[in-house]
């Protein structure tokens, strides 16, 4: 009996035992085999080298400088702290500029019992600075020197708004892109950001069989990183530099573009040194840049939204032509103002004594406001806005740069949505001369100038070849009323070549014929009681109007678009004209413009 009790108890224990062993080894076999595999495999990523950015002539705009990083052996701070101090002292002994306490802090942040790797305390030291100290430093067993690359922008401020810069990636960027997480750097703006996924390449990895101490036993798989994915841009860095320097103390933006969308230069003045950001910008530099009233951080050619002023007038005329073709065949009489509404609210032409009888061509040439006031009232804002959006106003240009602004092309719906207010007739009137709610970026104006010059709406492109793939051009052909289009172009020709044209002085004497349009976008509105405007030169700098000019050339075979805005520059022709003239001369000199036979332009309609 006693034996039976003992045996029954024993059998119960063994039954549970065998049942459990069966569950683990037979039933859960697949699950545990997976865990076993995870135990023995370790994946190590290899960082790809970031691709370079080149200009159209092969000049390197962004590359990876080769240098060295310095790491200190782990576990030096536990127990004998002096070992860590002596290692840091050794490093500082060779590189006195380095900050001891920062290095110590970085080390202590990453140091732990479980970290068996060397801890990087100096991210980057230039090759030529390190190379003489290398033999001595590398003998120290607590110091590890490794080859390291660092992004470098040799042209500094000249192209920073196009190229952008890279910086340390944040938590959010790490979680969305596995490559970024491994590399630890990501494009923060410009091409570096918009083409980040191409430039950074693809991770390589190695799968090792490891033992319990994480020691590698055998290489199971090796996939090389795919890198050196370069970007060749349409930019000519020499042109870019020439334009930037030409600005001097002024601020503003310039876009130089082929009519097919290739951007030769896009300048935003003032600018900043992108190299400051690569290792993390310090607070003093950041504050100085941040507080500059000329906004060096703002990429003015895609993020600066300005009233387009009179540069809108060709587009406005084309919108009238599309909406009501007969309308433009009728001349307007300009007596210097129109009166509108019961209060007889006066809308002045810029010329207080009026332009008299004004045809379309004359209206463009002399930028007669009354002509556009009257026509716009007949067409109405909704029809105008619909056409203008087709021409690129209020819509993004699609340029290959991040976070482009689309500006505003208002209509009744827009105002209701935005301000919960009805549309007033007067707002149609001022919209027709590019004031009021209308806002455009210089890139939008350049794109629309190309549309006027070629009847093609293109997408501006900075990059021409991305990772050996040619970027496809995007062109949407338009079919305008040819008579009106010809008149408009002739008006633009007059602007630069007729003695009464607003940019005649700066642009009539070019190696080829230039057509264009100037504009002045008001920063402050002008009161009703002011009969005669104060001249721009007499106004305070930051209340002065922005000076616009947008041009194309040669007149009869458009090959180049140049659009410029000088902030607080006053009148377009006088302020922006000479810069544009210099750009055309430079382009001519460098052979950017194929020579065309100078044809006689019909001068008959020169009233």
């Amino acid at each position, binding site marked *: 009996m*006693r*034996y039976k*009790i*003992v*045996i029954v108890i*024993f059998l119960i*224990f*063994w039954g*549970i*035992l*065998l049942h*459990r*062993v*069966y569950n*683990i*080894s*037979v039933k*859960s*076999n697949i*699950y*545990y*085999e997976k*865990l*076993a595999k995870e*135990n*023995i495999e370790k994946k190590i990523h290899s960082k790809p080298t970031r691709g370079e950015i080149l200009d159209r002539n092969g000049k390197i705009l962004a590359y990876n400088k080769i240098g060295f990083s310095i790491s200190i052996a782990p576990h030096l701070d536990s127990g004998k702290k002096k070992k860590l101090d002596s290692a840091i002292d050794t490093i500082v002994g060779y590189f006195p500029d380095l900050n001891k306490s920062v290095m110590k802090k970085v080390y202590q942040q990453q140091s732990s019992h479980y970290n068996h790797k060397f801890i990087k305390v100096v991210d980057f030291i230039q090759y030529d600075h390190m190379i003489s100290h290398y033999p001595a430093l590398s003998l120290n067993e607590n110091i590890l020197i490794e080859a390291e690359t660092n992004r470098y922008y040799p042209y500094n401020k000249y192209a920073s708004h196009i190229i952008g810069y890279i910086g340390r990636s944040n938590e959010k960027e790490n979680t969305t892109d596995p490559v970024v997480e491994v590399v630890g750097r990501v494009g923060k703006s410009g091409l570096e950001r918009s083409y980040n996924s191409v430039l950074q390449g693809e991770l390589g990895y190695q799968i090792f*069989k*490891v*033992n*319990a*101490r994480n020691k590698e*036993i055998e290489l199971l798989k090796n996939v090389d990183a795919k890198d050196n994915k370069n970007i060749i841009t349409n930019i000519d860095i020499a042109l870019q530099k020439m334009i930037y320097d030409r600005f001097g103390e002024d601020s503003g933006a310039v876009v130089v573009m082929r009519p097919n969308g290739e951007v030769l230069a896009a300048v935003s003045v003032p600018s900043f040194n992108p190299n400051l950001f690569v290792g993390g910008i310090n607070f003093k530099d950041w504050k100085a840049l941040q507080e500059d009233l000329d906004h060096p951080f703002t990429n003015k050619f895609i993020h600066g939204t300005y009233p387009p002023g009179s540069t809108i007038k060709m587009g406005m005329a084309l919108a009238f032509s599309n909406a009501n073709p007969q309308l433009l065949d009728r001349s307007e009489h300009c007596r210097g103002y129109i009166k509108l509404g019961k209060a007889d609210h006066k809308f002045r032409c810029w010329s207080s004594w009026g332009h008299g009888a004004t045809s379309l061509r004359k209206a463009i040439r002399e930028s007669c406001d009354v002509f556009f006031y009257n026509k716009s009232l007949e067409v109405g804002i909704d029809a105008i806005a619909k056409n203008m959006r087709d021409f690129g106003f209020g819509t993004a240009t699609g340029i290959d740069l991040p976070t482009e602004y689309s500006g505003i092309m208002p209509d009744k719906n827009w105002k209701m949505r935005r301000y919960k207010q009805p549309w007033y007739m007067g707002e149609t009137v001022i919209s027709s001369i590019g004031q009021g709610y209308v806002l455009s970026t210089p890139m939008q104006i350049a794109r629309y100038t190309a549309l006027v010059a070629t009847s093609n709406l293109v997408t501006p492109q900075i990059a021409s070849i991305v990772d050996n793939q040619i970027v496809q051009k995007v062109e949407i052909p338009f079919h305008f009323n040819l008579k009106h289009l010809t008149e408009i172009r002739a008006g633009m020709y007059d602007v630069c070549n007729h003695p009464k044209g607003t940019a005649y002085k700066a642009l009539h004497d070019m190696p080829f014929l230039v057509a264009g349009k100037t504009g002045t976008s008001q920063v402050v509105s002008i009161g009703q009681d002011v009969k005669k405007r104060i001249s721009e030169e007499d106004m305070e700098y930051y209340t002065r109007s922005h000076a616009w000019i947008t041009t194309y050339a040669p007149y009869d075979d458009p090959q180049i678009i140049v659009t410029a805005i000088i902030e607080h520059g006053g009148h377009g022709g006088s302020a922006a004209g000479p810069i544009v003239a210099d750009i055309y001369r430079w382009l001519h000199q460098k052979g950017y413009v194929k020579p065309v036979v100078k044809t006689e332009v019909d001068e008959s309609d020169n009233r």
Partner: protein
Amino acid sequence: MERWFLTKSNQHLEIISHLKISIKSMKHLLEIDTKLLKNFNLILMLQMIPLWVISAMLVNEIQPSLYDKQMLYYAVALVGFFVAFIMPWRKILWWFVPIFYAINLGLLVSVEFVGKSILGATRWVEIPGVGITVQPSEFMKVAVLMMLGYIISRNPPSKSGYGLWMFLKLSIVILVPFVLIAKEPDLGTALVLLIAGYGVLFIVGVKWQIWAVLVSFVVIAIPSLIYPNLHDYQKKRINDFLNEPSYHVQQALIAIGAGGVDGNQKDEATQTQLKFLPISTSDFIFAYLGERFGFVGMVSIVLVYILLIFHLLFIASQHNEDYLIQVFASGLAFLFFVYMTVNIYMIIGLAPVVGLPLPMFSHGGTSFIIFSVIFGILQNLIAFKDFLKYNSDHKTFMLSKNRLK
């Protein structure tokens, strides 16, 4: 040889007479030997061979450098077995057992004062002058079994089992070393001693009322009295066991689970070969067995243990009148049961990790040697079970106690 001595010198006559005596006694020994072999339980010995062979094979696969050591343990264990086998236990029991028990108690107490502390537990004591450290708790198992056998054979229970007085007396034999070992702390070994000791008492026979009271007391006492007095690391182990399995157990489960039905080739048994499985040659060797030979291998070894334990219980039941054999056979059965069950339970996550080896399987000298010695004693007792037939001295003693029919 004799002639050599005679011709060489007369001085040697004395020595020769000595030799003659020793030859005589050797003849006497041989005479006994035939009796020994007649009763020797060979099957019990054969049952251990699979354990020894597979253990050696597994240890060699995990760490070839330990193989030689293992062979050395085997050799010492065999010597221990034979020494234990030829000792005239039935003759010397009356003086040997009390002394041996007392010495071991003394060693356990000395652990308190001069013991060596390894990993927070004081279990080892250094023997002066030799430089060897021993773990007195291991010898205590033998001493307790001997002491129980000695007392029980001198005061056999009545038909209904021992009464309270004898039960308390025997309990002291078990509980004093239990408390001393548990204080070291080595709760695993202490519990083994406790269970094996009371298991033997259960087999030998104690009145059922005593068991009833004891069981109900234990059920109430364990949670309320024992748990608060545990060491922090012991509590942590129990908590780990009740919640997430520890890293060690997790790795053991992976190794066993990866083995599947029939296991993996040596090089494919990655969890052990790449050292993910901790202490794979000693306490966790069963997990490697699982990874290497799968469910089939594990069941086979468990069956070997089950058959061994059944055989031991059978031997005990066959010797109703010989309480020494009954105590040693059932004691050994309980030791095997507790060690193997607790060891495997902790590996498969059914018991907290208490550090008990798999008996005669885990790499480690103590387990092989101590168990061999106990087997040696048991075989000796079986071999000399007819001792009374040719030892009148003892017969007289037993008759005086009214124990012989």
